[in-house]
């Protein structure tokens, strides 16, 4: 075990898989000589060469389209979109092409591309360096959507994504790149997709979250503890396909659920989680499912801290749910 930050763990996953599998190639803007604007690929250009660590022209649709062609041919391309906010030029390639290749060819042309994109707020990035676009991709059949919250999961989930048969949108909570530190297994390490992690067990309310909201949930549940409320935190890790069994078990045990994400509220993933919980666990519920989310506004610059859910807002939701 080594102690790493999340960005180091991502780097470790990429370099390890490039070492093991000559078919793995990386492509994106500024990922080569510059090592990526967040340094996820630092030193890989020197180590594996410019043919496998590919600096691309500035065109996200070209990056994802090219990655699809590489995957069809048999490589394992890992595309980096510099910020998730800049993924929209590639939206057609992702939604109309990548997600549908397996279906439209009845399995003849799978396209197992991994698209990594730093996601979420917390770095004073304003409208265009802070967005959380996961709902668009969860809504699109054929994609898997993953978001780690710890360095170990960053390595293990990304390695699984790079080995899996399906395309994966791998969203990295950039606010945690350097603040999340933890033990990471050395060498080959995988965490299966589709399995949630119970961050802490509790008996009064289930707090279901992912990504950069996991530490916020931990802080809030610590506060809740002082009130005598026992909070169970579930880190989904893979957003889609959802580990519905983990959600069922937790909610049916506690009888209360709060879903927490920083993406906007309306039609956010929390809405789907809430509907799913109501459909599957209604008779166990002692209170309606509550959403704690970002606001239905563009991501603000000056008021970033007001926009992002914090422990205070989560704690309020915990109290309201428990005393409903």
């Amino acid at each position, binding site marked *: 075990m080594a102690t790493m930050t999340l960005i180091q763990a991502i780097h470790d996953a990429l370099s390890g898989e490039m070492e093991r599998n000559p078919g793995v190639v990386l492509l994106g803007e500024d990922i080569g000589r510059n090592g990526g604007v967040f340094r996820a690929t630092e030193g890989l250009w020197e180590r594996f060469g410019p043919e496998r660590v590919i600096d*691309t022209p500035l065109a996200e649709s070209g990056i994802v389209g090219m990655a*699809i062609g590489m995957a069809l041919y048999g*490589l394992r391309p890992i595309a980096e979109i510099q910020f998730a906010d800049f993924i929209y030029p590639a939206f057609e390639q992702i939604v109309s092409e990548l997600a549908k290749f397996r279906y439209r060819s009845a399995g003849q042309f799978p396209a197992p591309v991994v698209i990594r994109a730093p996601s979420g707020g917390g770095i004073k990035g304003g409208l265009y360096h802070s967005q959380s676009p996961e709902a668009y991709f969860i809504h699109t059949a054929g994609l898997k959507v993953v978001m780690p919250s710890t360095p170990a999961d960053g390595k293990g989930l990304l390695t699984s994504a790079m080995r899996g048969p399906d395309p994966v949108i791998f969203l990295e909570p950039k606010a945690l790149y350097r603040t999340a530190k933890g033990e990471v297994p050395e060498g080959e390490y995988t965490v299966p997709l589709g399995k949630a992690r119970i961050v802490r067990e509790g008996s009064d309310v289930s707090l279901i979250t992912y990504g950069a909201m996991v530490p916020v949930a931990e802080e809030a549940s610590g506060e809740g503890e002082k009130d005598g409320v026992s909070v169970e935190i579930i880190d989904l890790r893979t957003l889609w396909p959802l580990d519905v069994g983990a959600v069922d078990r937790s909610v049916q045990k506690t009888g209360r659920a709060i879903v927490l994400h920083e993406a906007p509220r309306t039609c956010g993933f929390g809405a789907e989680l809430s509907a799913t919980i109501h459909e599957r666990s209604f008779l166990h519920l002692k209170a309606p499912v509550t959403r704690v989310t970002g606001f239905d506004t563009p991501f603000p610059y000056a008021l970033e801290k007001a926009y992002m859910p914090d422990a205070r807002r989560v704690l309020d939701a915990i109290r309201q749910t428990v005393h409903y």
Partner: protein
Amino acid sequence: MEMPLLVALREDGSVDPALDPALGREDLLFLFRKMLLLRALDDKAVILQRAGRIGFYVPSSGQEAAEIGSGFALKDGDWLFPSYRDQGAALVRGYPLSSIVGQLFGNASDAIKGHQMPNHWCDRSINLVSVSSPVATQLPQAVGAGYAAKLRGDNIAVIAYFGDGGTSTGDFHAAMNFAGVYGTPTVFFCSNNQYAISLPVARQTASGSIATKAAAYGFEGVRVDGNDLLAVYGVTRGALEKARAGGGPTLIEALTYRMGPHSTSDDPTRYRPEEERADWAKRDPVRRFAEHLLRAGVVDGKTAETLAEEAREEVARVVKECEGAPPVSRESLVEDVYAETPWHLAEQRKLLSRGGG
């Protein structure tokens, strides 16, 4: 900017020796049969659609020389990224007529289980990539496949088909730019059939020709008479050979004409004069090639008519076979979304089997 137009087949049916690819009798007959088959398929498929026996069809009448000539230039191992109008290139690559027709019916005779509407086929066994409806999305993908081949040291080329409308998209620009930067073994084959649904090419681009756009990306553009099978074949073969030899990409503009509608849902009388169509009909690529074969003594008039009749019979026979296949299974609705069926689709499949649809 004006670009020279390469023409091999002269008006009188003779061939310009400078551009004659010198194909043998067997090849010429093979190509003629494929042209006739493609024309017969078009004629039949439009009737099937009008009769409600298939839902939709994208004809390619008028473009047979561009399709068959370019597709014939590919070698085993090459990859083909088609658009929905490129059944001719697929056919000449060895994609069976029965597969094209089965896909039109979307029943158990369809290798892709009725997942897509007509003209959206594929065949992994011959590197014939799946067609989608969005225009030009296949172009950056073709560049990626070419990059992958180059990285692996495979001595193959990748051809991508698209129309004049496709050249206005962002993906055309991205693909041309990436191909130029990386020098990928990509042949961009543009069938400039004069119309993108209703919009004439003069309203699609002000650049004078499509081929000239290649210059901005740092590689060669070629303009060829798209109704001249011999010229199309020769130019495409040259571009593919250059790509395989590491010479990088080429943009080919094949000047042709869509004699039919954009699709069976389109009515071209709304936007183009009949005289224009009649004028292009004089340059019908099938008749032009037939006249060449007659002049060259490869066929006589009677043989040409017999071959055309054989093509119609083959289409009729294949249609009969495919139309009689059973429908696709209802459960296949949730197959092939992911490699394995996840829990939510398994649950939704249960709803399906209770009825509806």
